[in-house]
């Protein structure tokens, strides 16, 4: 007779509700929201059947009266968040970026942005971070869709700590915001206690040969590449354009004035995203600087574990270094 086991025996076994341990970067979402509630702000959080994926289960356990589970009804969640925001509360609602940025695009435009309501939309597991879950779960268009919606601020933090800092700063931001964040497994670059300023780029290095302008996950490897190359006598700059909209125009123009080349790097289609936003600034100002747009080159990503995809699409440090060296010779 077989013996029923109380639990698996190996420490390597895990289940969905233990995802917090695997995605520590997303702990920062709940951390930021808990600190806002503790400070007395009328915030609430909601999710569409993904509280263990985005870590909001921690917020929900702490403040059950401030959390709403919407089930698998993303459009309903976004429209309801808009209704909640009319009453003076500030809702933070989260689901996969692939669904927020495309499935709920119209609800975001009509109910959130057009109505100018302070709803915070958190699109997590963005880009190709879902790896072999496939194209339905990849978000390589969300910057493009969200950026074209008037009155919507678009923020793409590079890691969990920067997301937490931006969440805390958002309490003073009276407009709707789309946060585009990863899956919480990125190595930390920032300190969660650092100030986050909407619309202000963060300069990590200055360079005359080339400046990388990146957002999201590629920022950290880009910083590592610049450090390595600059230590070897090259001159490569890195700017974290964490706020994609409104874009820090001065930062783009200063980089263009300083560097021979510009390169944008994003975990997004090169059409419509950060590269397009930088190109618009250069064109608007009549700056004839060569811009290399790097990201997903107008295609659907392959099936593979995320790290393999980042290597394949040259979004990791090795791939970025290869592209930079090719550009600067």
């Amino acid at each position, binding site marked *: 007779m077989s013996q029923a086991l109380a639990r698996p025996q190996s420490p390597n076994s895990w289940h969905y509700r233990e995802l917090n341990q695997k995605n520590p970067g997303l702990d920062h979402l709940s951390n930021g929201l808990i600190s806002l509630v503790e400070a007395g702000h009328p915030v609430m959080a909601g999710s569409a059947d993904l509280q263990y994926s985005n870590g909001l289960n921690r917020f929900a356990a702490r403040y059950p009266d*401030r959390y709403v589970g919407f089930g698998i009804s993303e459009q309903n969640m976004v*429209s*309801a968040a808009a*209704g*909640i925001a*009319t*009453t003076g509360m500030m809702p933070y609602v989260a689901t996969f970026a692939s669904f927020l940025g495309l499935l709920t695009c*119209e609800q975001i435009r009509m109910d959130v942005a057009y109505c100018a309501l302070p709803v915070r939309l958190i699109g997590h597991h963005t880009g190709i971070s879902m790896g072999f879950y496939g194209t339905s779960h990849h978000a390589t268009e969300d910057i493009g869709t969200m950026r074209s919606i008037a009155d919507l601020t678009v923020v793409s933090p590079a890691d969990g700590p920067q997301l937490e800092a931006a969440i805390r700063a958002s309490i003073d931001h009276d407009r709707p915001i789309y946060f585009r964040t990863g899956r919480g497994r990125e190595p930390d670059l920032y300190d969660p206690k650092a100030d986050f300023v909407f619309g202000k780029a963060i300069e990590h290095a200055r360079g005359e040969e080339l400046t990388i302008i990146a957002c999201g996950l590629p920022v950290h490897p880009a910083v590592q590449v610049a450090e390595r190359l600059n230590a070897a006598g090259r001159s490569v700059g890195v700017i974290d354009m964490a706020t994609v909209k409104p874009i820090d125009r001065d930062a783009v123009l200063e980089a263009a004035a300083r560097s021979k080349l510009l390169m944008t790097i994003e975990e997004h289609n090169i059409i419509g995203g950060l590269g397009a936003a930088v190109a618009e600034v250069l064109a608007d100002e009549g700056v004839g600087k060569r811009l290399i747009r790097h990201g997903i080159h107008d295609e659907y990503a392959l099936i593979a574990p995320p790290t393999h995809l980042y290597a394949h699409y040259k979004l990791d440090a090795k791939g970025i270094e290869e592209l930079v060296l090719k550009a600067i010779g």
Partner: protein
Amino acid sequence: MNSALRNDFRPDEETIARLRDRAQFVRLETIRLIEIAKVGHYTSVFSAAEIFAALYYDVMRLSDDPKWADRDRFLMGKGHAAVGLFPILADLGYLPVDVLNGYTRFGNPLGDHPDMRKVPGVDFSSGSIGHALSNGLGMALAGRMQGRSFTTFVMLGDGEMQEGQVWEAAIGAAHHKLNRLVAIVDRNGYQLDGAVDDVMGIEPLDEKWRAFGWEVHVVDGHDIAELTAALRRAKADEARTRPCCIIARTLKGKGVSYMETEPGWHLGYLDPSDADAARAEILSKVI
């Protein structure tokens, strides 16, 4: 609803007369405003005129301040009937009459659909059919979180029942036991391409809402006494643990005879001479 309950909430004769007058006012103002725009949704308002009147002149808790936090809310899934709401907002003093009289003209806040950013008294913007019940669900959730007692009324078109998001909200409202959320379906039977039953049938509608966990009442949407009693009860019933759906059986174009029989009047324009005749017919009837 049993007869005893109906009697408890039935408006008195004076109220009935007043509400009939306000429904007539909504129809007449709609004709007047559409003369300005030279195109509009007469019949979508005419089917809902009694619903507007009962809510704004009897059932809803309002104040002089259209932003009062404890006011009852009204949202329109069928935002194209906003031309029937604007005269009420002006009548209640939320909107200057000269603004009303500039309906749809360059730079005026009043367009074919209601805009909460521009129009005091509009509780939520609409125009994209299918969102409003979710918006109302959010308000009802937030009201509960804040310990407020306002009721949120959401008027939906019957064609709107074809939108999937309505049923996402229906599931959610029942799950969260939002007893201060009331949906009113204006079951006028027609949508742009024809009869709802021909375009994309939605019956049995009452059974659908019941199956989704709502308390359901089917009323004659032009019988002001029956409609008002149902709305009063939906608001007053503190013991209810479910959201409430009132299916108002109505006639699209009610009040102008040829509009009641020609679905094309969903959108149209009456020349001033025809508008006068329509006004005369509305004034000659007791609905």
